[in-house]
């Protein structure tokens, strides 16, 4: 429980004069007023206002009335013209001006005037269909409520298996419709319509754990390691059959399969690079994953490699929680294999790591540097600077591998409209341009099987 917030000094003013008060938090919308310098005015006295002092600021609050309550030592102040958020004021010293917040409502409502009629129809139909599905599944589950847990679980499993194809087909048709109805939109229109759409399907988004997380972004950015774990796991999750299906559907999308594809692709490329440097002493083959996330591909590699002692691996991420997940996964493999791996964890943002001229001294150089799911967030000026710096970290003859989603990612609108997940998409030429000035022995561009994601593989001259 939170400790009671400290009282705040203030002055009540009105017809009967000015009163110095100590204000104590009562409820979200009222305060208790203590009169330290004299007796309190009588019950139901009204004041023109209250000046409240918070740190070095003074706030003037509007008309209020004193109410004496039997159970309370100090009378309560209730406000007659405005609603104030005293919780924010006392606990965080923030003054919430609800009138200004309400002004914003008009702005939000005005957004809808710029939504195309076809898109409104599309949204209304989608919401209707979703509500029918939700109700249908809820009815089925309601029938099972009185069953023993084991029967309920089995029946849920049967429902999921039986209805998955039908529901996924329904969603796929809906997404096709989305692509059609938005086909002529420019960037700005996509943004506006996406916002409108999510307001309507919010209730459904909230119930599906994956969609809820991509929308709410509890760590402040899309693509956190927990979202990635959900993609790799590709399993049913949620409190109801409907939510489970809605959670699982995006995990079956081409973009999600592309993530799982790179998990197997990266170790293959790594092994190819490793062969070029053989033989190397223990810990002699050094690789670096930039924006490593949960580093599942590294766990796979260390679990399967006959001689994992030959690797030294560095994992870099801006997010300590991502690094903790990666570490936990690698430790699990270590325990299972009863071996010790050489792994360094580096908590750093690529945006600020460039400032260190001593980067190479600090991290060393690597035979293989790769970055998956990072460049999709970097705009050209930053991506170019980061790519150049990563190539500096590669030993002569070593390889740099960079992944980026392609502009034609078929899941793009699904991600933007449903998941509130935007990427910096690139064409082949735009990805290649990131390292066009770099000295390279060879530069190769290839796609994984879904065609969503491309990879730029650059070999440094030996």
């Amino acid at each position, binding site marked *: 429980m939170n400790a009671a917030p400290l009282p705040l000094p203030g002055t009540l003013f009105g017809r009967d004069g000015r009163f110095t008060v100590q204000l104590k938090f009562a409820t979200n919308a009222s305060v208790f007023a203590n009169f330290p310098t004299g007796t309190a005015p009588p019950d139901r006295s009204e004041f023109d206002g209250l000046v409240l002092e918070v740190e070095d600021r003074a706030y003037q609050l509007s008309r209020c009335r004193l109410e004496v309550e039997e159970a309370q030592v100090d009378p309560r102040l209730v406000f007659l013209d405005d609603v104030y958020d005293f919780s*924010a004021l006392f606990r965080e010293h923030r003054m919430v001006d609800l009138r200004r917040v309400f002004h914003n409502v008009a702005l939000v409502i005005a957004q809808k005037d710029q939504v195309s009629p076809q898109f409104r129809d599309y949204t209304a139909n989608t919401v209707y269909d979703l509500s029918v599905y939700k109700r249908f599944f809820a009815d089925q589950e309601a029938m099972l409520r009185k069953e023993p847990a084991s029967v309920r679980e089995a029946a849920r499993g049967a429902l999921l298996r039986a209805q998955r194809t039908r529901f996924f087909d329904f969603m796929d048709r809906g997404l096709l419709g989305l692509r059609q109805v938005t086909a002529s939109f420019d960037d700005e229109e996509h943004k506006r319509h996406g*916002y409108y759409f999510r307001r309507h399907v919010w209730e459904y988004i909230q119930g599906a754990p994956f969609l809820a997380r991509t929308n709410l972004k509890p760590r402040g950015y899309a693509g956190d390691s927990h979202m990635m774990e959900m993609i790799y796991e590709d399993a049913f999750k949620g409190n109801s059959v409907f939510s489970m299906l809605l959670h699982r559907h995006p995990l079956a999308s081409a973009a999600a399969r592309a993530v799982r594809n790179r998990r197997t692709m990266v170790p293959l490329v790594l092994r190819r690079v490793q062969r070029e440097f053989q033989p190397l002493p223990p810990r002699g083959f050094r690789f670096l994953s930039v924006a490593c996330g949960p580093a599942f591909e590294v766990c796979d590699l260390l679990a399967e490699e006959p001689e994992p002692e030959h690797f030294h691996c560095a994992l870099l991420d801006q997010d300590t929680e991502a690094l903790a997940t990666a570490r936990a996964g690698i430790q699990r493999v270590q325990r299972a294999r009863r071996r010790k791996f050489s792994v360094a964890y580096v908590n750093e943002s690529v945006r600020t790591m*460039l400032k260190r001229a001593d980067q190479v001294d600090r991290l060393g150089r690597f035979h293989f540097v790769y970055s998956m799911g990072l460049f999709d967030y970097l705009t050209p000026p930053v991506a170019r*600077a980061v790519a150049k710096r990563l190539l500096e970290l590669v030993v002569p003859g070593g390889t740099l591998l960079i992944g980026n989603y392609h502009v034609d990612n078929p899941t793009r609108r699904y991600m933007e409209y449903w998941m509130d997940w935007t990427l910096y998409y690139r064409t082949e030429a735009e990805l290649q341009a990131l390292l066009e000035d770099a000295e390279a022995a060879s530069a190769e561009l290839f796609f994984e099987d879904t065609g969503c994601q491309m990879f730029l593989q650059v070999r440094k001259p030996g």
Partner: protein
Amino acid sequence: MSELTLRVTPDWDVVRGFWPVSTGFFAGQGLQEETVYALSMIAQELLENAVKYGHYPDDAHGIAVSLRVLKSEATVEVKSPAGPDDAPLRRLDDTIQWIRGFQSPFEAYMERLKAVAMSPPSGGASGLGLVRIAYEGQAVLDFYINPQYELAVSAVHRLPDGSPAGIPAAKADHQPGELAVNRA
């Protein structure tokens, strides 16, 4: 590609005087009036941020601004000397990722307005300027620190298909990377 790179003294009057420079450059690329306005507003916001938050121990340290127009995008990049403290950079990283976490910058803008309505008592940066770049300027923000310890903040504005931009500017004397005019 057309590019204009300038050095600007960290001075409010000089920064205010930049408006005709940016509108002139972007209009010269054949961009539509509202795009010219949006990009010039972005340049202005980024420059003001650079004056406010840059570290200028002596006259040798100034601001470098570059305006770039390609076929599919226009970029404004402003470089200013970064301070020794890492905390503001981390905050900037978080703020930019937070803004970019919304498909619709309007949503970020609304959230920020709400936060401003809740008036931060410490009087710190509201972050509204950056959100304006994303929302009104319809641009994607990003930044990095270079080895010269400069903070390079950029905003990329996607140009609509068939935009006349990309046609090289009539005056081809501004080569990428060249210091075209030294105002410092």
